[in-house]
């Protein structure tokens, strides 16, 4: 730009585009499965496409895993478990895991951009949340690999063997990291299936595993949809199953797994209550409620989807909430200033659209800010339902989209009663400046995680998981190691 006599426009908050460059990623035309340390063609030759949900652009064709492919992956994992990985010392396993963590940090921009392209989430989130947490999970569990005897003192523990892990599309790499890290630290080998709409970062992780010379077969990645997942669940060579995803699929997995003795952990849906008292730090509570439901377009199992606000401040709070929502920037997920990205898939968009229509039909009041939705891709505006009753479908069922329901309460008892009145029990949030009220509430709330004066805060040292139909088992912390180990009998010696 040359100097000009015309002053520029006044500074506004409709910022100029600031797109992250996609030059850093290199997407292949087709991907095979990653089995025994190499990419291999699917046995059937079948593939399926993965698209960018923000543009509907075709990104790659990915192998569709058959029972035969799963069988090859399990066999490779078994060989690695009985071979190098099983015989390796804990400290040596830890060294591989530290290498993975460092590679994720070094290649974080590449992973973040790819995650955003394949899944539609804002680059700000994949860059500032998904990637740092994925690396942190490997760092944390790498530290446990040679300290299992301290995690489980006076108990002789051993890995199960081959773990089958099925992860969802909302945090594709991060969920893979949450599953892989404790499994590997404990000494298991893995067959991992990423979700069918978001397989690319798991496949890029395979590239990292090759770079760091992880022994072949320790981690195998089979791509595919529900049938592939079922093949893993049903495979008799799998010694431990872990699943994160919908409650519906989780129930099916538990039914299938119940036909044989196999340890299982499930991290399923949620319908979290986010409870705001009148004595809270109101501006920060508004912010937490907004990020608690609209980050990652509400595709978060622990999203604070039900706002319960004390009736005495409800009107002012909702007004402030609406204003804040009107400031959210929806659009190109690769733009560094985007707050709300694309819905992950056409199917999910349909689910959200149907649920919101049900909410309107049942009489709740819908608010959506004015915002231009892009022409291509899958988009849904941030939405708030007020006038919601406990009996409304939108207050009962998980929507897994950017939709908040608002209810009021008069007393702390009423807040607890409404919060617990759900088949789910994954998470809850409390906003009050009164410490004793926080302690009282956390005792009463039937939720695996209760956040007080914060929301959606994760740390690898902190266990995460649900009650009731939100699943069982914990991920994170020492608690997250336990599901990947069993107690040995008849052997001497301590650690793994």
């Amino acid at each position: 730009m040359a100097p000009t006599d015309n002053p520029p426009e006044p500074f506004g908050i409709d910022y100029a585009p600031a797109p992250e460059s996609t030059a850093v990623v290199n997407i292949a035309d087709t991907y095979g499965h990653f089995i025994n340390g190499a990419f291999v063609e699917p046995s059937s030759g079948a593939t399926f496409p993965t698209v960018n949900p923000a543009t509907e652009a075709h990104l790659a064709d990915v192998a569709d895993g058959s029972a035969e492919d799963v069988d090859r992956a399990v066999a490779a994992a078994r060989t690695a478990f009985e071979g190098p990985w099983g015989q390796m010392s804990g400290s040596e396993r830890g060294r591989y895991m530290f290498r993975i963590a460092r590679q994720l940090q070094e290649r974080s921009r590449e992973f973040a951009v790819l995650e955003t392209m394949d899944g539609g989430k804002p680059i700000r989130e994949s860059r500032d949340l998904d990637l740092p947490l994925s690396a942190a999970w490997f760092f944390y569990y790498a530290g446990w690999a040679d300290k299992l005897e301290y995690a489980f003192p006076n108990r002789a523990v051993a890995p199960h063997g081959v773990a089958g892990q099925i992860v969802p599309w909302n945090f594709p790499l991060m969920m893979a990291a949450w599953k892989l890290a404790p499994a590997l630290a404990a000494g298991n080998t893995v067959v991992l299936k990423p979700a069918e709409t978001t397989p690319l970062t798991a496949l890029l992780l395979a590239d990292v595993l090759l770079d760091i010379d992880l022994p072949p077969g320790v981690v195998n990645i089979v791509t595919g949809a529900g049938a592939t997942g079922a093949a893993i669940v049903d495979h008799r060579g799998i010694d431990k199953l872990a699943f994160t995803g919908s409650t519906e699929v989780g129930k099916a997995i538990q039914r299938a797994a119940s036909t044989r003795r196999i340890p299982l952990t499930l991290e399923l849906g949620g319908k979290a209550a986010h409870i705001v008292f009148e004595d809270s730090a109101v501006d920060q509570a508004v912010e937490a409620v907004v990020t608690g439901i609209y980050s990652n377009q509400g595709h978060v199992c622990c999203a604070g989807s039900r706002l319960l606000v004390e009736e005495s401040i409800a009107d002012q709070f909702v007004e402030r909430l609406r204003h804040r929502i009107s400031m959210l920037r929806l659009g190109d997920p690769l733009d560094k200033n985007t707050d709300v990205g694309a819905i992950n898939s056409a199917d999910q968009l349909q689910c959200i659209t149907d649920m919101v229509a049900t909410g309107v039909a049942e009489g709740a009041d819908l608010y959506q800010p004015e915002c231009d939705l892009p022409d291509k891709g899958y988009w849904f505006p941030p939405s708030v339902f007020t006038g919601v009753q406990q009996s409304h479908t939108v207050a009962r069922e998980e929507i897994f989209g950017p939709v908040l329901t608002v209810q009021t309460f008069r007393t702390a008892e009423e807040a607890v009663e409404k919060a617990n009145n759900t088949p789910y029990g994954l998470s809850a949030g409390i906003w009050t400046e009164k410490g004793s009220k926080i302690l009282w509430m956390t005792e009463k709330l039937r939720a695996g995680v209760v956040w007080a004066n914060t929301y959606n805060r994760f740390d690898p040292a902190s266990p995460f998981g649900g009650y009731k139909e939100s699943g069982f088992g914990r991920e994170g912390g020492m608690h997250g190691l336990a599901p990947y180990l069993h107690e040995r009998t008849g052997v001497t010696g301590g650690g793994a």
Partner: protein
Amino acid sequence: MTGSTVFLPTTGGGPVSTTPVDAVSLEARAAALCTRSIKTTSKQAALHTTIRCIDLTTLEGTDTPGKVASLCQKAIRPDPANPAIPSVAAVCVYPEMVEHAVEAVVGTGVIVASVAGAFPAGMSAPAVRVADIADAVGRGAGEIDIVLNRSAFLSGDLGRAHDEIAAAKDTCGAAHLKVILETGELGSYDQVRRASMLAMAAGADFIKTSTGKLPRAATHPMVLNMAEAIRDYADQTGVVVGLKGAGGIRTAKQAWHHLVIVGETLGTDWLTPDLFRLGASSLLNDVLMQIQKLDTGRYSGPDYVTVD
């Protein structure tokens, strides 16, 4: 709201109340706003808006008429080589320098602001503080920057802290009153929030972070906290109060993130010199260098902007 402090605005109307502040979440929100990526046309606009909102400041015991004349020239014409660069909003000086500054800026639109009221501690008798303010106004200052009486505020004598500001406002007449909270001395975001409401209820036209004499001054979370207090006050009373960040703002990037914070909290209506100021001395040259970079594609260096 429970446990909050309530103030009665001197301008009339019902009581206004404060809300607690959660420090961790406030800082997280400010950090998130500071990841806003300001590029190309937005950066150009931000840099010009920053200049238009600067209170170019010299508050040294060594200030002289000559130094102030030089500062005023810089304020009027920040970059002699580029006529498109606007003047800053105001120059900010000690009362003794006000007449020299007024003489230098007359007819240019640049305002002369003066600190007063026993700046920077405010530890003088109320009558002395008022006399100091009256003197600065009499010398021609269009804006008066005073400090909150932190001694009164922290000892719980909110009445005195309030009344001194109200008296200052009366003394100012047509001059605008900016009240400096000296955030670095108040100890918590809660106290800053409360002091903000007190100052606004007492009649401040602007609330201002700091004197510039202390560290931990105009940080991004602090400015966010005060912007939220201003929004609160406007919601409760309809009265619109300005915000001035001062102390520690040295780079263009810091400045445009202050614009982002104010713009996304209070709205772009606030991003004018009437309602937003940045008190600074070295900031202006960094902004000028950034503009040169945008114009030419190259960084020049500190020898290509004038020191004052």
